[in-house]
C-alpha cells in the first residue's frame, strides 16, 4: 500500500511538524518501505495475534517489574509545550453535543 504526499502532509500537520515539498517526497518513499516491512511480518505470522505473541514472546519476571515509587512528573509548561493551552488543559474541538 503506497502512501501519498497528501497523506504525509496531513500527518505532518497533525503532528505539528513542518515539512517542505522535498521532505514530503522523501517521506512518502520511506513510509512505503516501512509499510512493506509490516506487510512482510504479517505474511509470516498470518496476522493472528497469538502468532504475534509467539514472535515477540519474551517474559519478564514478576520481581523485575517497577517498584511503586513516585517520580517527579513533568512541569505543566513542558507537558503543554506543543499546544495552545486553556488554563492548564489540553483543548480540543468539543467532542460532545
Amino acid at each position, binding site marked *: 500500500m503506497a502512501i501519498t504526499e497528501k497523506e504525509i502532509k496531513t500527518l505532518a500537520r497533525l503532528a505539528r511538524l513542518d515539512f517542505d515539498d522535498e521532505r514530503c517526497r522523501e517521506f512518502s518513499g520511506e513510509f512505503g518501505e516501512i509499510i512493506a516491512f509490516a506487510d512482510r511480518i504479517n505474511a509470516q505470522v498470518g496476522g493472528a*495475534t497469538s502468532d*504475534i*505473541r509467539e514472535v*515477540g*514472546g*519474551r*517474559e*519478564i*519476571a*514478576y*520481581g523485575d*517489574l*517497577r*517498584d*511503586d*515509587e*513516585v*517520580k*517527579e*512528573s*513533568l512541569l*505543566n509548561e513542558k*507537558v*503543554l509545550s506543543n499546544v495552545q493551552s*486553556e*488554563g*492548564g*488543559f*489540553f*483543548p*480540543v*474541538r*468539543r*467532542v*460532545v453535543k
Partner: protein
Amino acid sequence: MKYELVSGFETHVELATATKIFCGCTTAFGGEPNTHCCPVCTGQPGALPVLNKKAVEFAIRAGLATHCEINTVTHLDRKNYCYPDLPKAYQISQFDKPLCEHGYVELESGKKIRILRIHIEEDAGKLVHERGFTLIDYNRGGVPLIEIVSEPDISSPEEAREYVEKLQLIMRYIGVSDCKMQEGSMRCDVNISLRPEGSEKLGTRTEIKNMNSIAHIEKAMRYEYGRQAEILSGGGKVEQATMRFDETTGETSVMRTKEDAQDYRYFPEPDILTVNIPQSEVDRIKNSLPELPLEKLRRYIDVLHLNAQNARLIYKYKAACDWFEEAVAAGASPKNTLNLIVGTVFSRLDTEEDKEKFDVGISGAQAAELIKLLDGGKINATLAQMTLAKMLETGDGVEKFISAEDMRGMDDGELTRLCKEAIAANPQAVADYKAGKEKAIFALYGYLKRATQGKADVQKATEIIKSLI
C-alpha cells in the same frame, strides 16, 4: 406476562497504588490539571510504559479475595479507540488472558454472584466540555484500574445494591482501593435484560454506562426494567444498546445502538513483556489476606453472639473491627465493647470517612481496661460511657478518671447491702410494689442513686431487690 430481571455488572475500581500503572507519576486525587503527567502517560512518541508491580499485586489480591483463579502467566493488550481522553488512541488493557478468572462474591443470603474475570488496565483522562471546546486533564490518565466483570447473576435492584456494597467492602478490607463512588474510584456499567419468568434463555440486553452511586444504580435498573417490560409486553423487541442515565429525570436513554458498536481491534501490547508470576508469590499474597467482611459478620453474629444490628453497623469499618478485636483480645467482653463502640465512639465520628479511619485517640487495649470494670460490675453502663467519652477526648487511660473510691459500693456484696438499706428505708414503696405497682420500685432506685452518686448498676440492683422482697 411477568418478567425476570437479569443483570451483570462491569465494575471499574481504581487501585490505591502511589504511582500510575506504567509510569512514576503520582495517582493523588485532584491537583492542578496536567501536573501529574509525563511523556509516558501523555503518550509521547517513543515513551515506553513500565508495569507497576504493586498494581499487579493489588489486582491479584482482589482476585483472591473474590475466590478467582490467578493466571500466573499474563499479558497486556491494546484496545484501540479514538477519543481524546486517551492520548495514545489506545488503552492498554487485557483481552484474552486476564489476571484473574472464575470467582464469586457471596451475598448474605448465601447466593453467589459469579465473577467471570478481573483484568488490569489504565484509566483515561478527564474531559470537561466547555463552550466550543473539550478540555482535557490527563492527571487521571494511567491510574491503575481493575475491571471486575460479573456473570449475569443479579436478579433485582436490591441484589445489585448488595453486590456493589459487598465488593466495596472487600476491596477496602484488603486495602486495594477506597472505592469512593463520588470521587470516581469505583464506577459501574450495568447490563440489563429481561426474560419471561421461568425461562432459561437470556433476552437482549442494554448497558447503562458509568454509574457512580448505588442509589442511581437502583433507580436506573428500575426504570430500565419498566422500559424493557413495556416494549416486550407490547410485542416489541428490545434493541441492544448502550444507555445513559439522567440523574435529574431518573430516566435512561439510548446513547448508541449496536450498529455503531466499535471494533476495538485488540492486539498484544508489544511494549510490555509477558509477565510471569511465581506461584509462591500468589501464595504469599493469599496468606496475607485478612478475614473477609462476610466471614467477619457471620463470626460476630454466630460465634460471638453479638446483636446482629450492631454487628452490621461495625463490620463495614475494618479499622473499627480491628479496634474491637484488640479490646476483646485484651479481655473485654465482646457485647459491652460493641455497645460502647456503637453508642459512644461512633457518636463522636461524624462522617463515613471518620468511621473508616477510626482514629479515636485511644487503643482498643486501653478501652479494654475500662470495659473490664463494666464487665465485672465494678461500674455501671452510664459511668462507662461517660468515662469512655473522657478517655477519647483526652487520650488518657481509665486510671485518670476512675478511682477506687468511685468503684466502692459497686461490687455485688456492697450493692446487696445498699439494696437492703433502701428496702428498709422505704417500707411504703415496697408494700406498693408488692401490691402490683411496678413503678413503686423507682423510689428504691432514688435511694441507691443518692447513696452511690449515680454509680449503682440499676439493672443489677433490680435483680437484687426483686430477690430480696
